[in-house]
């Protein structure tokens, strides 16, 4: 018996958003009487933290504290249209729509403030929930008081509408020419593995990745995507299949005893760095990081197995059985 070590790499690009049939998302923003801003979206949060990053983007665009932004998702009676949360599109599309809506709302906020403060709107700025005259920071008024004035004195609605649309791009049937994305994020992953040549078992020791995802709105949640995706990719490579003997229907799993996914004991060492090269069309330069993190670990692990034992196992999942068969075929050459 021998345990062989190997290292493999893989690089990848990943498209943000889709284009099929056009890809829009809308947002509405309105100010409540005491300065709380409500963001209305029909985008769903799948656990990735969309509500939080949308709150951050709205707070940034409005110039108010995060605590005074309430993000409401998930009711078609009260929120305008959204295509859905998929295609690594939600932060890009909804973020852009929210910036547009917040910008419109902020314009009214400054107009109301200008009247109250007897200043020109263009001379005002909002920061941390305070409107002040540029260059004269002692002349300030809180968003709280401006909102009250708008509601009960001036009769104005501090609100805004936003939409981001990626227009439809039809595919040329002869050449395939099309515009398939809004921007592209990138990654390189390095996998270190051990292969037991007697049992065929593969152990992933380490996954180290360098990501480039445009601007990060919330680095810790980007890290969450990278960590979760690395493990999902590893499981895709080594463990998971609903048809292990595809195309045969045998051994179709129906529970977690038959379809094994990784648990904490299976986790490799995980490292990553994130580079930020802002995109031209994302909100504050965002690119989508949602889907891509499960991708590069797959070929990186397959390549590391090749580096360790000299065989490319090119059918997923790379089970011990397939590794042993590949090693046997190599010996017989």
């Amino acid at each position: 018996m021998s345990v062989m070590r190997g290292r493999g790499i893989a690089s990848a690009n990943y498209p943000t958003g889709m284009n099929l049939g056009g890809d829009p998302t809308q947002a509405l923003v309105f100010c409540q009487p005491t300065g709380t801003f409500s963001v209305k979206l029909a985008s769903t949060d799948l656990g990735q933290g969309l509500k939080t990053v949308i709150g951050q983007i709205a707070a940034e665009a409005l110039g108010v504290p995060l605590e005074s932004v309430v993000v409401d998702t998930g009711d078609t009676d009260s929120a305008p249209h959204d295509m859905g949360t998929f295609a690594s599109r939600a932060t890009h599309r909804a973020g852009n729509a929210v910036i547009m809506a917040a910008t419109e709302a902020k314009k009214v906020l400054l107009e109301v403030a200008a009247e109250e403060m007897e200043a020109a709107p263009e001379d005002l700025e909002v920061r941390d929930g305070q409107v002040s005259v540029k260059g004269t920071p002692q002349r300030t008024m809180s968003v709280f008081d401006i909102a009250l004035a708008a509601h009960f004195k001036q009769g104005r609605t501090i609100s805004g509408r936003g939409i981001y649309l990626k227009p439809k791009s039809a595919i040329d049937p002869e050449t395939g020419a099309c515009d398939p994305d809004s921007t592209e994020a990138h990654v390189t992953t390095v996998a270190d593995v051990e292969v037991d040549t007697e049992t065929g078992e593969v152990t992933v020791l380490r996954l180290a990745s360098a990501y480039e995802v445009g601007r990060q709105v919330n680095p810790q949640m980007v890290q969450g995507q990278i960590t979760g995706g690395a493990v999902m990719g590893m499981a895709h490579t080594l463990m998971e299949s609903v048809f292990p003997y595809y195309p045969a229907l045998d051994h179709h799993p129906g529970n977690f005893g038959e379809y094994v996914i990784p648990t904490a004991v299976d986790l490799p060492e995980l490292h990553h760095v994130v580079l930020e090269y802002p995109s031209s069309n994302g909100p504050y330069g965002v690119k989508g990081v949602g889907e891509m993190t499960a991708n590069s670990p797959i070929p990186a692990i397959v390549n590391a197995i090749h580096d360790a034992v000299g065989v490319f196992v090119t059918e997923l999942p790379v089970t011990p059985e397939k590794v042993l068969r590949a090693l046997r075929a190599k010996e017989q050459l």
Partner: protein
Amino acid sequence: MKQLGIVGQSVKRSDGIGHVTGQTEYVDDVFYPGMLWLKMVRSPVSRGRIRRVDTSRAERLPGVTAVVTAKDVPNNWYTILCLIGIEPNDEPVLADEEVMYEGEPICAVVAETEDIAREAASLVKLEIDEQEPVLDVEYALTADAPAIKKWGNNTFMYDGMNHRRLRFGDVDRGFEEADHIVEGTYQMTPIEHVPMETHVCVVKPEPNGRLTIHSNTQALYFTMDNTAIILKVPSNRLRLVGGTVGGGFGGKVDVITEPVTSIAAMKTGRPVKWRWTREEEFRRSSVRGACKMEYRDGVMKDGRIVARKVRSIHDAGAYHRHSPYGVQKNMANLPGPYSIPNVWVDCYCVYTNRQPSSAMRGFAVTEATFAVEVQMDKIASVIGMDPWEIRMVNAYRNGHMRPVRKVVEDATLLETLKAAAQLVGHELPARVRDMHSDDYAGVAEPVQP
């Protein structure tokens, strides 16, 4: 890059405490007095003609309030792609004449408790004339295979063609110039999304005649509009409530629970819940489709790839779902993030009598990345080049033209390669060490349209 205020900060997530303490409300937490439960009766065979569906014993079971069959579905087409012009419709909401995969929904039973619904489902008697299933995509593409689609073959038709294609440059000339030809075949088998929360839907008929649909769909409006088309009601009759989902990964964009649950609620006039078991999630929900990709690359001694020809076959399973779209995404990404002057890609969306596949995280791009990146190492091993170097020599740069004829404007592949090398302490070959995405030194000039 300009420093911002709250954007760029790792603020604590607004819903984190709720998630980790079990206080977040998911669809399965929705409960109404008088709520009924739904269970689905499914095909036991992979392909067959339905002769008879006998629900009489199920209906006589005490506690059963309704049975929903194909006749109860106002527009018995599963319409998800018709809204974006992809036709023809091919999947019934509930099967009436034929079944195309094991597990296909045939009829639903609705009862006072989940246990009664489960028992009633087992009492429905199905008479199905079984037919030989088509399970293998290569067989499905042959003339010998029975056509399982009404349009007479087993592939999705794109603009009258049985595949999507990329044509860029002249691959034959590229192969002639090449010093080496490197081939590889890459196969993904289907996997499941495995969200923590299975599919759940609760529909409540409101006194004003509307339906409130609690759903864990990833796409509320998409689900509302498709449900309205299937129910043949204006969408103003429906209100979709959701927005908090216990894991999606592409598995919850199929509008698969809302129409039938809504019909059951309309038929009984009472709230109805349908929640899937883990077994249904594994065996009946859409999966990531199998995909076979065959690569043939022409490569120069210095590592430059001068021609790439790919044939890709995507196993859609029994019905479209989102597969015709995924295949297009596959097509756009099969060349990889590399500057290759001559590219030829043919992508087939093939139907088989299998559990339908649909969207999953990285939809058809994960597949392409797996194939491209193992192929890159194969090339490196054939020509005896460092795996880092082969990627850096071929990496696309800003200004390059991709085979879909879009100019690259945000390339950073080289930057991630250099950062990854630094992260693991790998010394890059001198030839490529200083390459960057705005520089063409040592590589092909930007390819112009």
